[in-house]
């Protein structure tokens, strides 16, 4: 058993070693929003030497949702026939006419769920109404949505559908790795996405772009170990992809989950806040399951809108600026009164920096 005391000791020892060996500037990106939060909470930026810079990446599903998609699901929620089920983080995202929470206060039926599977239960018990689940998230939440769609087909539930915004992680990493303006030396790779996809989908980072990668857990020493490994790789000039979260991440990932995703979804281009349209980075519901695709069922068109003028969330997601460089940060934009999605989500970079007073 690794005890709390071990963890604290090792955190300090690992941090000491990072300070000892950091000899030149190293730019690392923590891809995942849950890592951003954990890094803030553990005060990791404060103990790193000045040579090691940690920038926060696009791994917060709420934050990367495009304005056009927010606008589209808000329109769905306005329909009186509709029960819109979604994860808690989505209900406070500001849209053109306020957030889902505000629509709910005006009478819309918006329900917070922990899983797509819960939304199915509403569809069974309220047959006269349409239950639409907002499918957001990466490879970690997508299997639950896929499973719900599969069950809905099996049970011939005609009043269940998904407004599907699921996205995948490796494709935006390719965009970030090939960006010459923010040259990233290494990536702290998302632990739970990796549970599903495994190690192999990241190999291109090292092979094609010379960037190192380390799959990391979420405890402070686990994150610090990943940072140390990345700094070592960069120093040695041998970028590798390492798995430091072996207790749950198998090299090939979760094959059952991969097969389920493949059965229900096909890769498609998707729009990301800040990063634009990224080829093959979205999961679209396959033709055979088209009856459960809310966008098709309700003929929802995505129109181009700009919801938050002044919000720099997009630049933050690419690691170009830090939250305090946004003029609205901690003034007009706070977690109580968020202007942009990076402040709304409990995994958002602006929210993390606000909460843990980071610079």
């Amino acid at each position, binding site marked *: 058993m690794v005890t709390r005391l071990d963890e604290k000791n090792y955190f300090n020892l690992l941090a000491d070693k990072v300070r000892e060996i950091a000899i030149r500037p190293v730019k690392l990106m923590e891809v995942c929003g849950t890592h951003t939060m954990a890094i803030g909470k553990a005060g990791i930026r404060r103990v790193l030497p000045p040579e090691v810079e940690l920038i926060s990446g696009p791994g917060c599903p709420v934050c990367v949702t495009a304005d056009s998609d927010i606008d589209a699901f808000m329109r769905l929620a306005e329909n009186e026939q509709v029960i819109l089920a979604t994860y808690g983080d989505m209900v406070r995202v500001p849209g053109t006419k306020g957030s889902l929470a505000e629509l709910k206060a005006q009478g819309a039926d918006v329900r917070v769920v922990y899983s797509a599977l819960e939304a199915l239960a509403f569809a069974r018990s309220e047959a006269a109404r349409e239950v639409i689940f907002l499918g957001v998230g990466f490879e970690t939440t997508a299997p639950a949505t896929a499973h719900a769609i599969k069950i809905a087909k099996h049970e011939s539930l005609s009043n269940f559908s998904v407004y599907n915004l699921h996205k995948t992680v490796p494709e935006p990493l390719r965009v970030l790795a090939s960006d010459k303006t923010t040259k990233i030396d290494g990536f702290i790779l998302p632990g739970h996405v990796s549970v599903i996809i495994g190690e192999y989908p990241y190999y291109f980072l090292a092979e094609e772009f010379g960037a190192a990668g380390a799959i990391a857990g979420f405890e402070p020493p686990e994150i610090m*170990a990943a940072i*140390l490994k990345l700094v070592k790789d960069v120093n040695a000039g041998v970028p590798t992809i390492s798995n430091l979260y072996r207790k749950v991440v198998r090299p090939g990932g979760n094959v059952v989950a991969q097969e389920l995703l493949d059965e229900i979804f096909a890769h498609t281009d998707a729009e990301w806040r800040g990063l634009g349209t990224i080829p093959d980075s979205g999961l679209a519901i396959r033709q055979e399951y088209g009856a459960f695709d809310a966008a098709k069922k309700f003929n929802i068109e995505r129109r181009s809108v700009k919801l938050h003028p002044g919000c720099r969330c997009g630049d933050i997601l690419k690691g170009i600026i830090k939250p305090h460089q946004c003029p609205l940060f901690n003034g007009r934009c706070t977690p109580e009164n968020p202007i942009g999605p990076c402040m709304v989500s409990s995994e958002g970079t602006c929210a993390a920096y606000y909460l843990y007073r980071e610079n």
Partner: protein
Amino acid sequence: MCLGVPSKVVSIGEGHFTGEVDVMGNIKRVSMILVPGAQVGDRVLIHAGQAISVISDEEADASLAVWEELIHGYQA
């Protein structure tokens, strides 16, 4: 929505579709379809109502050796 929660499997339903897990004293029913190898007593990682991985205690303990190697290994 992205938080993964470790928990212990207390029962597995027929056909291994669902199971009950103990999350810090609360019993919750979750989908077990993604962890066909999971058994009662195993610790699993829960995400969005699904168990997505069986936690390997050997690998968890091996982390200490990995950290040692990172701290004391000769490669700088």
